[in-house]
């Protein structure tokens, strides 16, 4: 199975390539360089694996939530490859990637993912690891004020994601369960791969034009009518 994975949803930019048993990846933390470095990184991975775009079985990407422009860079790239090569696209939650990274790095079973959403809010979701080693969403993904975040008392949740360091005070109430901090802050494309493989096996791939971002923050401006009501 050959899957290309792309994530540009945060200040981190990464690509990963599953080529049968082998996994290769590239990443960078250079701000505002995602669009520029993305294709060179992909080309390096493909060249190392001796693969051409037509040899891919699927293209997976971090579909958000995250930086709006960042999420669209990965989405547009994945759409274009899926369309150009006529393969399925596999949209994966950026929050799930962070949870999956917690499994990979620390064997964490229950992750409370909080990513900085700016404007005093966090992108929030809870994930639990199933027997197959894959993280599964518990409840919903949300964007909300850190103070409004809630989490069941059990199981023992591990806080992961960039927002815990940004809002330590406002998130203190959910850390009370005696959980530990893990060094998992930003998503990485290599964690797309295990989730994407399962999606592909289950036939959950979508056509290129249906592979779309999930922003969670859906009201980005007020219409003139709404502004009049607010005034």
């Amino acid at each position: 199975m050959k899957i290309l994975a792309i994530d540009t949803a945060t200040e981190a930019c990464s690509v990963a390539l599953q080529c049968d048993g082998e996994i290769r990846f590239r990443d960078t933390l250079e701000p505002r360089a995602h669009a520029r470095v993305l294709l060179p990184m992909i080309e390096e991975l493909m060249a190392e694996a001796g693969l051409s775009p037509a040899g891919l079985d699927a293209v997976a990407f971090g579909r958000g939530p995250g930086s709006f422009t960042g999420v669209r860079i990965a989405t547009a790239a994945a759409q274009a490859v899926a369309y150009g090569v006529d393969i399925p696209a596999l949209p994966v939650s950026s929050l799930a990637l962070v949870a999956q990274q917690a499994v990979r790095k620390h064997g964490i079973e229950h992750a409370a993912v909080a990513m900085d959403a700016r404007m005093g809010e966090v992108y929030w979701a809870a994930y639990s690891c199933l027997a197959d080693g894959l993280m599964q969403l518990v409840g919903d993904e949300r964007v909300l004020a850190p103070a409004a975040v809630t989490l069941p008392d059990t199981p023992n949740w591990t806080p992961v994601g960039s927002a815990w360091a940004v809002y330590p005070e406002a998130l203190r109430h959910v850390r009370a369960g005696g959980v530990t901090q893990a060094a998992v802050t930003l998503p990485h494309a290599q964690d797309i791969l295990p989730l994407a493989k399962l999606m592909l096996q289950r036939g959950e791939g979508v056509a290129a034009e249906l592979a779309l971002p999930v922003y969670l923050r859906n009201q980005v401006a007020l219409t003139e009518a709404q502004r009049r009501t607010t005034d």
Partner: protein
Amino acid sequence: MLVLGIESSCDETGIAVYDTDAGLVAHTLFSQVDTHALYGGVVPEIASRDHIKRWIPLTRECLEQAQLKLEDLDAVAYTSGPGLAGALFTGAIAGRMLAWSLGIPALAVHHMEGHLLAPMLEAHSPSFPFICLLVSGGHTQLVRVDGLGQYKLLGDTLDDAAGEAFDKTAKLLGLGYPGGPKVANAALDGDPERFKFARPMTNRAGLEFSFSGLKTAAMTAWRQSEQSARDVADIAAGFQAAVVDTLAIKCLRALKQEHLTTLVASGGVAANAQLRNLLAKRVARIGGEVFYPRLEFCTDNGAMIALAGGLRLSGGQKPEQHFEVRPRWPVESLVPPQAS
């Protein structure tokens, strides 16, 4: 050579296929104007969110019209600037990655070069050299065009673009968005002589524009009026006459200064009927000729991007080696294809 063009620099998603031997093959467009009208102007984030939903369905539709398959394409040209950064990223990444996945060259196109060359999509098209008036919501420029990539900026606006002045005046008069067609429509019933607005920057030498004072004059007239339907129509007519006259005066001045007789008017405001009539009349008087793109290619579209990309590639331009989006990108920094 069959070139796919992708335009997403503002609030229109445009796709086209241009054949460097046979001309425009097909084009599709989605304008978000109705969406942004609800907000009183373009909301960049909303524009970007729309582009990413539309570009593939529009490309499929365009190829279907052209009776072509993706595999038939020889190159992809996409707008890489200037424009709204988020909007540009969507179409530019899409175009670059589509070319990569098809194993064909990709070319970054300057949006304003697309507008400059748009009249060449028509059967009766201008030959170099000519003066181009680029006039839209974001630009008011006079450019001397000596050939592909040979552009000399002769004049620019010091403040608002002409289209922006139309938008702001339309808002003031309660006419809504987009201002150009709304003001033009309201002006149909108006008396352009009742409010005689000054023609900014025409009483001194040079080819610069300034429209913010005119917008303020319209506002003053509006505040001092009874704000009746008649006042709306008369101010709209007076304002439109002043903008159009100012643009025409500077176009003629540019032709004279450069000893040329061919004028091209392109960009959204070039769709204004009054402007077209006045330019035609005055340029005819000096024995010259005015060329416009057809109305649908005055505003943003994929056809002009496919055309510019096609002309550059067939002119020998090498496909780009690195990817860049350029929200600010001066048109006079462009060079001919062989030199790029």
